[in-house]
C-alpha cells in the first residue's frame, strides 16, 4: 500500500492515532520531538488525537519564554496544529487540578476530560504513541 492509497481512502479508513504527552517541555526533548511527529503525521490523514496529562499539560502553558536558557520556544507551534487539521486536543482534568491550572492558562483551545473519559479515549485508539 502506498501513501497515495491512504489519501484516496480518505478519513474514513484512517486509523485512530493517539499521542500521549506526559512530560513537561524543555526538561527533555520528548515534547518537541512528539510535536514533530504530529506535524509530519498530519500529511497521512489519519484520525489524530493528542492527550496531555501529568506534566504534559505544562507543554501548553501560556507565556513560555526561553531567552534566559538558550533553547527555542516551540510552544507557538501548538497554535499551528489547527492548520494541519489536528484539532482534537484533550487535557486531563485531574492533572490540571493537581497543578492549579485552568484552560485560561493554556495557549490553545482544548477539551478537558476526566480520568474515566481519558481511559475511554485510550481504549478507543488504534495506535498509541507515547513520549
Amino acid at each position, binding site marked *: *500500500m502506498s*501513501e497515495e492509497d*491512504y489519501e484516496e481512502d480518505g478519513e474514513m479508513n484512517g*486509523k485512530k*492515532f493517539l499521542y500521549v504527552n506526559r512530560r513537561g517541555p524543555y526538561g527533555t*526533548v*520528548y515534547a518537541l*520531538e512528539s510535536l*514533530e*511527529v504530529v506535524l*509530519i*503525521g498530519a*500529511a*497521512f490523514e*489519519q484520525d489524530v488525537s493528542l492527550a496531555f496529562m501529568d506534566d504534559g499539560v505544562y507543554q501548553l502553558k501560556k507565556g513560555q519564554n526561553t531567552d534566559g536558557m538558550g533553547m527555542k520556544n516551540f510552544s507557538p507551534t501548538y497554535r499551528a496544529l489547527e492548520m494541519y487539521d489536528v484539532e482534537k486536543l484533550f487535557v486531563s482534568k485531574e492533572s490540571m487540578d493537581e497543578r492549579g491550572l485552568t484552560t485560561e492558562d493554556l495557549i490553545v483551545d482544548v477539551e478537558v476530560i476526566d480520568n474515566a473519559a481519558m481511559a475511554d479515549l485510550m481504549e478507543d485508539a488504534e*495506535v*498509541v*504513541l*507515547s*513520549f
Partner: protein
Amino acid sequence: MKFGIQVNEGPYQHQAADSAYNFAKAAIDAGHEIFRIFFYHDGVNNGTRLTTPPQDDRNIVKRWSELAADHNVDLVICVAAAQRRGICDADESKRNGKDADNLAEGFRISGLGQLIEAGIESDRLLVFGD
C-alpha cells in the same frame, strides 16, 4: 501478525533497547513479522557502528545488525533525531559537510513518515523508552 516497534533510548543507558530487541526476537521466533523498528529520540544512538562494548557484555548494535541480516527486519533511524545526535550515513555526512560517518550495517536513515507508516501498516505498535 505484523508488529511495529519504536525505540526511544540509546544502547546501554536504559533497558529500552534490550527490551525492544528481546521482544522483536521472541515475535520472530513465534512466527510473527516485524514490519519495522523505528529509532527515535536517543534511540538513534543504537545505529552507530563505532561502539566497542566490553568483551563480557552484550553487543547491542551488532545484535540489531544481525537481526536485520537474518530476518530482513527494516531498521529505520529518524533523520531529524539523528542529525541532532550525530548519527549519519555517507550521504548524510556529505550533505552536512562532515568528514566521517558512523551508521551501522542493516540500518537506514529516513523521515518520521516511516513511523506513521509503521503505525498504519502494523497490527500492533509498541513503544520502548525511558
